[in-house]
């Protein structure tokens, strides 16, 4: 069967199981959009800015575990995808981006809307392709999906010249062989390493697990729990590892690192064995490297060999899929109890709880309260998509994550503007789920044009804007490290309620504590989208905090709740 390149793109996408494409048409991708009308089985979501398309594809992939697909034209269309690709490679999200390119005879000519897209995206994709010959197109489409999803997932970009979309070739797909001699992402498990790791665990008196995103991606949450319970090992997680273990589990400690609860970081500094599972010892987790976990031997379970020894040199490394590594490891681990160690951590935890801002009797509307109410109002059952900044950390601290893939957030890249489009992608992947986008007043304004997509696609996405009138996290750093010089962090905001109304999205402004529960109840029970704006107390800081470059044990604790004239007031 002879098909045009434009048709081959859609035929290949259908064969890869793609049902949804997030995109925006333009000159160099016109033939492909023209062919799209022949493929009603593809649901194309017209975005309002290509960055939105990339984040929606990410949200879709993060919520479903399937490869997300976005599409854009050449030049500015393609460059607008860049932030989403960079975000996807940092957080190992499988997406395939398809971009149009000027015709082959104009390549390198500075033609209208020509940009060296493969050049620009080389360091922020797992791999990319420039297609100049239609005969190569089926193989490249197949390879792209294979590379995006196999091994450590990541983004792949395919840049397709306009004349290639118009040229025809005999279309075969199933028979096309993927020949990638340099792409071997799987490694056999070393039995020697498994035995060595088990011996370390069996000897340890004060073991600790740090679980990361890899546990969820490898579908290894059951194995993680099994290991933790068998040898009674407490589990802290990275930001993207929230949901690896239910936070109601007695061995779950919560998130560690820069804004982790004090007891998690103190446990890292006091443990004699640290087991990193599906995580990469990011600087937000380790703080000052040479002072990190000073008494600990380290076991690192990781799929990507380049992450092993990059930041922290392990005593034993188990390279491979962490589900398989855990399955091999668990039978060799002896049942154990570590009551003293757990009691020590529990004491640190109690101190943190006493300082908890939620225990202070204040009337003001503070963000931690909003986050805890979000959790209450949804019985912890919703998918939460957070943006980047203070609200992201409060969500991590005060929403108690019970399931994998429940929290979708921009971890490695820290991309403001992520939440609204990613929530759209997540909602499309999980139409039955209750999806909440939690976003600051700054980040919301970076991608709020995608509200149009919520309406156009009739999605019941709920949005909570945590409006403190500041770029809150940057303001916090200015307060703590730049002598309170608030250089360009106060925001002059529009009326967010009117913006929602302009899109026909019902909205409500919340200014007092007493209204919060009711507002969430109203939004949750509304069948369509709903926007809540929380006018929160402006200058509240996220604590605890490990200052950048400090050792994780050397943390700024929550200020003690002190007695004031009108009862108990916190001293922040």
């Amino acid at each position, binding site marked *: 069967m002879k098909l045009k390149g434009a048709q081959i793109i859609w035929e290949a996408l259908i064969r890869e199981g793609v049902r949804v494409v997030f995109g925006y048409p333009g000159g160099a991708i016109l033939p492909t959009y023209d062919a799209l009308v022949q493929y009603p089985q593809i649901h194309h979501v017209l975005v309002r800015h290509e960055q939105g398309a990339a984040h929606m594809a990410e949200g879709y992939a993060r919520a479903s575990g399937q490869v997300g697909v976005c599409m854009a034209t050449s030049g500015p269309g393609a460059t607008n995808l860049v932030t989403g690709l960079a975000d996807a490679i940092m957080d190992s999200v499988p997406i395939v981006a398809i971009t149009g390119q000027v015709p082959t005879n104009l390549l390198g000519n500075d033609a209208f809307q020509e940009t060296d897209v493969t050049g620009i995206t080389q*360091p922020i994709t797992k791999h990319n392709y420039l297609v100049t010959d239609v005969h190569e197109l089926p193989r490249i489409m197949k390879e792209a999906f294979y590379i995006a999803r196999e091994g450590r997932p990541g983004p792949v970009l395919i840049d397709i010249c306009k004349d290639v979309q118009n040229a025809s070739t005999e279309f075969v797909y199933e028979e096309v062989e993927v020949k990638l001699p340099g792409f071997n992402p799987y490694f056999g498990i070393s039995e020697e390493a498994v035995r060595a790791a088990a011996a370390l665990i069996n000897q340890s008196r004060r073991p600790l697990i740090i679980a990361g995103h890899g546990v969820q991606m490898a579908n290894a949450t059951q194995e993680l729990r099994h290991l933790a319970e068998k040898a009674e090992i407490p589990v802290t997680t990275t930001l993207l590892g929230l949901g690896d273990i239910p936070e109601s589990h007695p061995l779950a400690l919560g998130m560690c690192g820069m804004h982790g609860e004090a007891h998690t970081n103190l446990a890292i500094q006091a443990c004699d064995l640290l087991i990193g599972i599906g995580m990469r010892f990011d600087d937000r987790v380790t703080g000052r490297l040479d002072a990190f976990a000073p008494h600990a031997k380290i076991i690192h379970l990781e799929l990507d060999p380049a992450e092993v020894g990059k930041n922290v040199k392990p005593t034993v490394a188990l390279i491979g899929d962490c589900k398989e590594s855990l399955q091999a490891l668990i039978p060799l681990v002896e049942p154990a109890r570590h009551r003293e160690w757990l009691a020590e951590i529990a004491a640190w935890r109690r101190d943190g709880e006493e300082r908890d801002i939620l225990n202070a009797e204040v009337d003001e509307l503070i963000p931690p309260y909003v986050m805890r109410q979000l959790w209450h109002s949804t019985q912890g059952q919703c998918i939460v998509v957070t943006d980047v900044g203070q609200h992201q950390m409060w969500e991590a601290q005060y929403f108690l994550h019970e399931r994998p893939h429940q929290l979708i957030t921009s971890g490695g890249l820290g991309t403001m503007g992520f939440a609204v489009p990613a929530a759209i992608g997540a909602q499309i992947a999980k139409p039955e789920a209750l999806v909440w986008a939690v976003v600051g007043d700054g980040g919301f304004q970076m991608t709020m044009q995608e509200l149009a997509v919520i309406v156009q696609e009739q999605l019941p996405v709920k949005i909570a804007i945590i409006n403190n009138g500041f770029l809150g996290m940057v303001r916090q750093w200015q307060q703590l490290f730049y002598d309170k010089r608030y250089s360009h962090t106060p925001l002059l905001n529009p009326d967010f309620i009117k913006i929602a109304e302009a899109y026909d999205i019902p909205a409500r402004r919340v200014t007092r504590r007493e209204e919060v529960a009711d507002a969430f109840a109203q939004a949750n029970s509304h069948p369509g989208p709903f926007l809540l704006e929380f006018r929160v107390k402006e200058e509240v800081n996220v604590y605890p905090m490990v200052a950048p470059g400090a050792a994780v044990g050397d943390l700024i604790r929550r200020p003690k709740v002190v007695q004031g004239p009108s009862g108990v007031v916190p001293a922040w």
Partner: protein
Amino acid sequence: MSDSNGRHLSKHTVIAWLEDKPGVLNRVVSLFRRRNFNIESLSVGHSETPGISRLTFVVNGDDRMVEQAVKQLYKLVNVTRVEDITHKPAVIREMALIRVKVDGQTRSEIMQIVDIYRQQIVDVSLDAVVIQAVGTEERINSLIELLSNYPILEMVRTGAVAMTRGHVGRNGSMAQQQRRTAL
């Protein structure tokens, strides 16, 4: 030698095998830049396998940095194999072409030096000669140092190319081969 972060730096020689496709060398070089690896020399050409190029590079770094370079290179889809041969017995050579200014008096001196170093003069004109030198980096450095007493007009060096000594099968390193034989 140490860098500003107090890391102990030394020279490492690494060989990488790449698919011979457009843009692959750019991916490799771009990776060195992106990861802040300091490359001393880089040399690429055909290997014995059609469609596979062979790249030798010398990187100045500490062990961890070089380990990272090897692992990150291996992650490139078009890189089929990477081997750090720094601590293995190997033949490592580079070539230089050096044009030196001469007159009637210095020509014979230079010919003598070239002779002692067992190198060749490959082009002669009235006022200059071109010397072809092949050898280890140290040997070429030493020749250049001597020749710099006569003005060097022009010079080009290829950077190191390398091959491990002994028999290395296509399917693995010498050590792996020996292990297989022993079993």
